[in-house]
């Protein structure tokens, strides 16, 4: 009789383990640390995440697995294949960039340092565990480990009602979604008698005909929890409020690492476990993708640039739109003979999105150093104040839009489009094309705003200004100016008080931020360097999109 004791491959689980242990270490150290030394915890976190990233290197062969059954067909609960490694790289790298962003925020907003870093690391550990899980129980546990700390992170701002309300909203809706997922898992277990993904796939192949409806229902319900994390429509309503209520780095984290938990779970569940039911989840995901991208992009388009936090809101809604693109290859997998080939496009897209979206959040944080309103209009004429920040922001936005010089954004979209065309989902490809155009419009407006002429230094001789002067005696004040009409906003016909007001604003602000926090600069530089490198050599991540990762 063979031993039932499972051997553990510690190297395989190292990326997750290092992250989790760093979290515990930070929490314990916090107790013994004098308040003036608390910033140290941030650097411990960054070092821990960097170490976790290094732990991925020995695994690059992608052939390790652990927590395997010692009997039967030796199913493993933890597999470090290429899919898991790519998503873990995304999670750990995303958390690292978030940590760099957070150093300043934690200090400035006086967030409880020990708790903050512990929660961030725990959530990252859960998100890193998720793509490597190969049974439904581990998947759900990983999903919860990734989610629960996130609620607390959203609500961490003391004495901020918006923050607490956002956290509660996020928490309640998420718990419902997870409960529904759990119900689905139990149905699937009832129908197949197993939790291991491969065995489930085998079991679903020949389900007792009387249990067919139960299995199909279980498949659909299981998807709900992951769709919620991905913020797919109609499970997206928590996004804008949570993003705005949360500290900015947390919003960035949710938009990247939170999503990765959602899509990696969906990919595993659909492509590996529920493969026999492709004709059930394929169309469902396709409709979900179309709805998600359309809702997100249309809502992003409707953001008023002068509203408080409009920049964060726009990024929040656009992240819903981007989640729709992430779903396209997964939906295509439902229609393709070789579904595993499709998933790579999602992973490649997510990696691109992680880099540039975190970069965009970093620049928003940088701008907020001087103008804390997180308004889109705060970005007006950034180029004249801080040319480098404006150029990198322009690059990130064009990557998100998928327009040269954001080459990597374009090719990631090409990879996604290709999966749709390849598997005959022509209508979804067309919907996505329309959405890409909508998204281009608002990203481009933002980009144009960065390079707009400064409000104060207005040459009075431009024809547009003259035209406005004759046709519109009461020019809009800078506060209500839309990005589409800087020509009008810069017209020197604004009332005297407005001009004086904006001049005063300009006078208060140094032309270059007095001291840009170094971690923030490092985060922007890192994201920009990655983005440029990927634009030159898209093969680096797009090779994930060819062949199978499993």
């Amino acid at each position, binding site marked *: 009789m063979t031993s039932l004791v499972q051997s553990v491959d510690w190297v395989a689980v190292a990326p997750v383990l290092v992250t989790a242990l760093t979290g515990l270490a930070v929490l314990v150290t916090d107790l013994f640390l004098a308040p003036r030394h608390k910033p140290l915890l941030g650097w411990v976190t960054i070092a821990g995440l960097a170490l976790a990233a290094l732990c991925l290197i020995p695994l690059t062969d992608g052939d390790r697995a652990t927590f395997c059954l010692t009997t039967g067909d030796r199913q493993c609960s933890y597999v470090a294949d290429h899919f898991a490694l790519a998503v873990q790289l995304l999670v750990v790298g995303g958390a690292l960039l978030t940590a760099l962003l957070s150093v300043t925020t934690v200090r400035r907003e006086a967030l409880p340092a020990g708790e903050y870093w512990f929660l961030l690391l725990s959530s990252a550990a859960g998100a890193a565990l998720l793509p490597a899980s190969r049974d439904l129980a581990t998947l759900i546990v990983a999903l919860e480990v990734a989610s629960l700390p996130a609620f607390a992170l959203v609500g961490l701002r003391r004495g901020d009602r918006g923050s607490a309300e956002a956290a509660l909203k996020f928490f309640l809706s998420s718990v419902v979604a997870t409960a529904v997922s759990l119900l689905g898992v139990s149905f699937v277990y009832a129908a197949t008698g197993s939790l291991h993904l491969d065995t489930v796939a085998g079991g679903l192949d020949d389900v007792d005909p009387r249990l067919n409806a139960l299995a199909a229902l279980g498949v659909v319900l299981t998807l709900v929890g992951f769709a919620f994390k991905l913020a797919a429509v109609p499970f997206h309503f928590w996004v804008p409020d949570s993003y705005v209520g949360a500290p900015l780095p947390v919003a960035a984290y949710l938009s990247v690492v939170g999503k990765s938990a959602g899509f990696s779970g969906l990919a595993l569940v659909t492509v590996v476990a529920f493969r026999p039911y492709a004709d059930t989840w394929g169309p469902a995901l396709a409709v979900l993708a179309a709805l998600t991208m359309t809702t997100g992009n249309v809502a992003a388009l409707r953001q008023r640039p002068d509203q408080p936090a409009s920049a964060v809101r726009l990024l929040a809604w656009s992240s819903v739109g981007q989640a729709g693109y992430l779903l396209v290859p997964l939906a295509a997998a439902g229609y393709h003979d070789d579904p595993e080939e499709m998933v790579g496009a999602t992973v490649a897209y997510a990696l691109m999105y992680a880099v540039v979206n975190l970069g965009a959040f970093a620049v928003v944080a940088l701008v907020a150093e001087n103008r804390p309103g997180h308004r889109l209009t705060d970005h007006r004429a950034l180029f004249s104040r801080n040319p480098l920040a404006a150029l990198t922001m322009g690059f990130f936005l064009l990557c998100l839009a998928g327009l*040269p010089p954001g080459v990597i954004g*374009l090719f990631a979209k090409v990879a996604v489009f290709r999966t749709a*065309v390849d598997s005959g989902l022509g209508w979804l490809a067309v919907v996505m094309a329309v959405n890409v155009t909508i998204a281009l*419009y608002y990203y481009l407006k933002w980009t144009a705003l960065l390079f707009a002429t400064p409000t104060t230094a207005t040459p009075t001789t431009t024809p547009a200004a003259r035209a406005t002067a004759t046709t519109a005696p009461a020019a809009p004040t800078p506060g209500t100016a839309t990005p589409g009409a800087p020509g009008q906003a810069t017209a020197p016909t604004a009332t005297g008080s407005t001009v004086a007001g904006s001049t005063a604003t300009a006078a208060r602000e140094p032309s270059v931020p007095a001291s840009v926090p170094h971690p923030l600069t490092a985060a922007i530089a890192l994201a920009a360097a990655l983005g440029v490198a990927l634009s030159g050599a898209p093969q680096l991540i797009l090779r994930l999109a*060819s062949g199978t990762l499993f």
Partner: protein
Amino acid sequence: MNDTALQALLLAIVLLPAVGSVAALLPAPPGLRGSSPEQAVLRHGVTVTGTVLALAVALAAGFDHDHPSRMQATTDVSWIAALDIRVHLGVDGISLPLLVLTALLTFLCALYTYFRMPQGPGPRAFVALLLLLETGMLGTFVALDLIVFFLAFEIVLIPMYFLVARWGGEHREAAANRFILYTLLGSAVMLLGLLLVGVRAGTFDMVALADQHGAGLSHGVQVIAVLAIGLGLAVKAPMWPLHSWLPDAHTAAPTVGSVLLAGVLLKMGTYGFVRIVLPVAPEGARTLAPYLAAFAVVGILYGSLACLSMVTGVGAADPTGATVDLKRLIAYSSVGHMGFVLLGVATLTPTGVNGALFANIAHGLITGLLFFLVGALKERYGSTDLNQIAAGAGAALYGKAPRLGGLLAFAAVASLGLPGLAGFWGEMLALFGAYQPAAGLSRPAYLVFMALAGVGTLLTAAYLLLVVRRVCMGEHPAPAERAAFADIQAHEYAAWSPLVVLTVVAGLWPAVLLSLSDPAVQNLLGGSR
């Protein structure tokens, strides 16, 4: 010249503007500072575009003129193996003239800007954008991979958007937004078509696809691909009824923006038809060609009628009614001229396609010149409104500035297709092609198209001559008024004379271009018969 040298030349031509664009943003190195930072960066623009032009001329000289149908100066390396995308570049008899035209027009624009920087933000960004634009335009004409072609096609959008939105005239933001939305929607659909072709045929390589002549693509796939790709190209060309971004963009753009928009960007659309649509999906092209021809003819008539009503004041082409913007007029006339190009393409015959390519080049030269001239009028009158310039009996440009007036008349008659000048051959060959369209196309329909297009040439002549009469003729000006009015300046001579010379050369000696394009066109159309 051997092929390695040509290859190096071609790579330098495409990469140099990109490098120059980045360099323009950096501070000038010691020794190249010039009299001021502005002057230094403008000079940098002239130097880079001038070098590119010299290299392009050298490439044209080294090109093997005995085998223009063969791809020359080719580079073919794998770029993104995962998507099977290769950096495959090369020129043949179809792309070479467009390459040289692009290099020439960009150089002339940089030269013109050196002396006449348009109003707006500083020249540093202007030069950087101009050079980035040049990279995209040149890249489009040399790319031989569908996705790299698309990439280059898209690169031009951002610089052109900012050129219009930042340095343009009235309503520039709205015009720029409209321009970019139209073209982006078109190109998103085009990307789907390109992917469909690539996925179904198994390769993105244009040369391989052209050699297959549509083998491996079912009729349905070909029709969908032609529809999707054609839509993207038709927006750019622009084809009626997708043209409505063009007049606004032209009206708002600064002079050099208009020149490049009309002279090069529109050609990218028609070039795509010849290079991709016809050889890659010949069956789909044959199915949809009559519709393309019909739209093209409507465009010809629409463009010329719109111009005519603007000039004569009949109807209300312009909603305000009072102003007749000359830039808008030339933009509408471009819709008409590009209609001839599309008609030539839609005949699917070597004659028609050769005519289309010839008309492409001719339109680039002549309309580029026209926009330069209107820009000069704007500098002198402060407006491009015909009614304001030619108030009363006329502007009497012949009297005030005889050389400028003469040149304007020259450009106008070249544009209306006077035999002996460049505008003539392309349109005539396109009409010839329509007289005898390719097998399988309805001849009676094409005869009707030809007749209608012929009417269009008459209308074109009518409105252009009316413009010449109103601008150039009029009461004899007083000597004082004459003295106050500047005739052509030295820098204007420098920027314009190459266009004039080439217009005459192409008109008198069309074989220069036709001998280049004809073998390549025969090769591309070879399998479709």
